[in-house]
């Protein structure tokens, strides 16, 4: 009842070929590559530690330092991750949202410093600075969504990416035009000067404050997304926009809320950033933006927990990595190679955890 099968393939020969192809060359290359990197890292670290150039206190302070800068990355990364979770677009201009708030707050800070308010009522002053920075960042983020991104809903994903890149330049140079091209230093806030000893570890007050504040904000945000109606709407819109809108969720408002929250966190991150680094310039958003984006991917983009973990890890890697891995290997100027280490580790992580740390490992589905 069956028609004859098509001419049989030369099974023998193709079997042999298949046997050869069955060798997972790619995987072997990957493993060799990873092993050599890991060997390099371990050997470099051992050599560094053996030289004893750095004391235990040095390492401690480097780690604290990494945690502090990582906390800032984490807060910015949340903005990327929230927008990605809901619109699946990389908001390349998020770094500029971060810059806009803290740069504007600078002028308030100068005014406060001028009349002495900054150091006579530091807590109120900082609260006001925080508010101003967050408000401006929220404003810029929302305007950005309204004018640049909303018209593009449903366009292929490269289109909003390019728009976001355009917006990034546009915002940078708008603020250059408004506030000038010079680097400006935030006035000193006296109560933030000096060091604390916590659990026997010496750290700068600013570092401790930044780490704690970032953690607090993270917890607040987590609760917000998990518990509030807006938070639930955000998750629903991220799952399926059409169904969410059928369920009576106002999609536009939810998206605006997402941008606003991302902006608020970026604004807050800005103030924490100047606690640590104390200067502002119109290009200041770009690099932290890229790093936060990296952190978001490292942790698993779309996940708030991932953003936090990714940020902290990246911060620590940057602070500790070059000295630990390269000093012992006698590489000149190891700290110049910081991006190599940060991105190298990113590649390594993604090879083995293609979804980042928190992203569900991506099982292939047909």
């Amino acid at each position, binding site marked *: 009842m069956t028609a004859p099968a098509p001419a049989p393939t030369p099974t023998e020969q193709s079997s042999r070929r298949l046997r050869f192809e069955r060798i997972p060359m790619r995987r072997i290359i990957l493993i060799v590559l990873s092993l050599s990197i890991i060997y390099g890292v371990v050997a470099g670290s051992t050599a560094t530690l053996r030289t004893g150039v750095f004391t235990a206190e040095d390492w401690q302070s480097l780690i604290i330092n990494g945690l502090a800068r990582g906390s800032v990355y984490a807060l910015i990364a949340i903005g990327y991750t929230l927008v990605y979770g809901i619109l699946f677009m*990389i908001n390349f201009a998020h770094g500029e949202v971060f810059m806009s708030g803290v740069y504007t707050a600078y002028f308030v800070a100068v005014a406060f410093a001028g009349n002495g308010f900054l150091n006579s009522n530091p807590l109120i002053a900082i609260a006001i600075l925080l508010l101003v920075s967050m408000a401006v960042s929220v404003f810029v983020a929302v305007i950005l969504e309204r004018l640049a991104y909303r018209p593009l809903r449903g366009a292929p994903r490269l289109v909003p990416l390019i728009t976001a890149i355009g917006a990034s330049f546009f915002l940078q140079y708008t603020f250059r*035009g*408004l*506030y000038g091209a010079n680097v400006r230093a935030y006035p000193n806030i006296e109560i933030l000067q000096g060091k604390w000893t916590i659990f026997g570890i010496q750290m700068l007050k600013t570092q401790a404050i930044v780490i704690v504040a970032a953690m607090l904000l993270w917890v607040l945000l987590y609760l917000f997304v998990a518990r509030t109606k807006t938070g639930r709407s955000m998750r629903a819109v991220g799952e399926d926009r*059409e169904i969410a809108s059928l369920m009576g969720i106002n999609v536009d408002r939810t998206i605006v809320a997402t941008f606003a929250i991302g902006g608020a966190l970026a604004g807050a991150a800005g103030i924490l950033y100047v606690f640590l680094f104390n200067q502002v310039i119109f290009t200041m958003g770009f690099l932290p933006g890229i790093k936060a984006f990296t952190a978001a*991917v490292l942790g698993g983009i779309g996940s708030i927990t991932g953003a936090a973990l990714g940020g902290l890890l990246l911060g620590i890697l940057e602070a500790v990595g070059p000295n630990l891995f390269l000093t012992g290997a006698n590489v000149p100027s190891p700290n110049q190679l910081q*991006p190599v280490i940060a991105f190298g580790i990113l*590649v390594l992580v*993604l090879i083995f955890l293609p979804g980042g740390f928190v992203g569900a490992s991506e099982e292939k589905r047909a």
Partner: protein
Amino acid sequence: MNPTAALKPGLIGGTVVIYLAAIGMVERFQDRNVITGVVGLGVVLILLTIAIAAYTAARKGRTPMPTGALVGLVAGGMVALITLGFEGLINAGVDVRGMFVSITPGLLETLEFGLNPALGAIVMALAGGTTGLVAGGLVGLKDEHLRSSIVFAVSMTLLISLGEPILRVTLGNLGIPTNWLYELGGLTIAGTIITLLAGFGLRWWLMGRKEKRQEIAAHMPEDTRRTWGRASLIAAILALIALPWVVGPFVSDVLGTVGLYVLLGLGLNIVVGYAGLLDLGYVAFFAVGAYAAAIFTSPASFLVTEEGETFAAAGFTNIWFAFPFVVIIAVVIGAMIGAPVLRLRGDYLAIVTLGFGEIIRTLVLSDWLAPFLGGAQGLTRIPAAPPESFDLRNPQHIYYVILAFCFVAAYISYRLADSRVGRAWAAMREDEDVAEAMGISVVRYKLLAFAMGAGVGSLGGVFFAAKIGSIFPNSFGLQVSINVLAVIILGGIGSIPGVIVGAAALVGLPELLREFGEFRLLIYGAILIAIMIFRPEGLLPNKRRQRELHEGAGSAPVELPEGASPA
């Protein structure tokens, strides 16, 4: 007439003017004469904003002539009033210069047309009102020929004035005197009138001809049409060949840069446009090409022997010998970079490629590899390639080389798009799993795309090095990757002519505004946003993509990795 129709455009227009003033554009642009002695670019910016506001206001109601003009007048007047209010605020002594550095006495002077405040305000109101009146009235004009001819005449005059840096040099190069047309960077008054009249006449004439032409074209036999097509192609090629000698070295240099970006765009187009791999680190291959070329040829290279002999011993006296090896090296590096990360999808791949770009930039900058790659001091003295009469440092010469390689890359792209390989890429771009189920080895084809992209990108690097003669690490930043990506998306992803248009628009046009370097990236960003909003398929899209875009508009555009939702 609905008076509220003018409200929104007027308000927006006013905001735009304040914005332009506050970021310093008005004051700085005023330095450039549009009509020398009459009006500078800063004032033109304001008038243009007013005109657009008035036009939009009048357009909204499709208002006929007299009321249209009135609506325009209201809108234009509003913009002017808002501007005046802003001016008044500053004049009232609200010194905001500590914060807004661009709000300077010079700005005020511009806004007051160099007169005293009261007189300036009157002029501003008058100019705003008149411009609004005219622009609004234009909408109401029933005669399409007339309207379009006026708009054309004004735009052309503006463009000719803005194009002064290039046009004056080009005309001078051709031996045409320009004194009657240009003076101190702007048009002369006589030149303005002539240009306006010429533009008007030209458009008028063209519009009359257009209908006739269409008629002729419709009746043209197939053969004739093909001959015409072929003839215009040959004419275009001849024009491309003659171009550098017509426009002179400066414009040739710009064209060379545009060509480099076309080359890079064609390469990246294979990766992003054909294979669908979002690569944000394309600069890596550009850098590999440039550095490899420099290492092979520069006397500053570590390959130079003790006796001062270059690597010439092995036959690499110059870029011509070196470039095939460079391309091979780049292809190998492309495959090496690609292999570990090809399984990653979408944005994960994007950030990893971005990382590779940064890694390469950092490595060429590093003290660690400085003995080989020059570090911060770069690699200099890349020798001119023979023959001596065809010095590649001369922009008019390298133009041809770049043009030739652009043709080669375009040919490769064109042939591949419609081949078995191109179909495999297209399938992979559409749906990786299904492509694999159709027997396509996704890994192999991704690697192939990466390697080919790397090869073409490295060619760009080779001729960049040949063109400049010195390379420094800071030429290989993220900005280059972003530029190239913007070029192909702006032009229309997957479209070969689109790459050319995109490069011309994003790389060529900004050269017109070189003197306003601080606003170049601002304008660049604004253009990117505007085009993506109003023409997301790109300027010259691949027809099929365009069809798909309009078909699929509104549906969810993305497939995502699992678990990509907020935790």
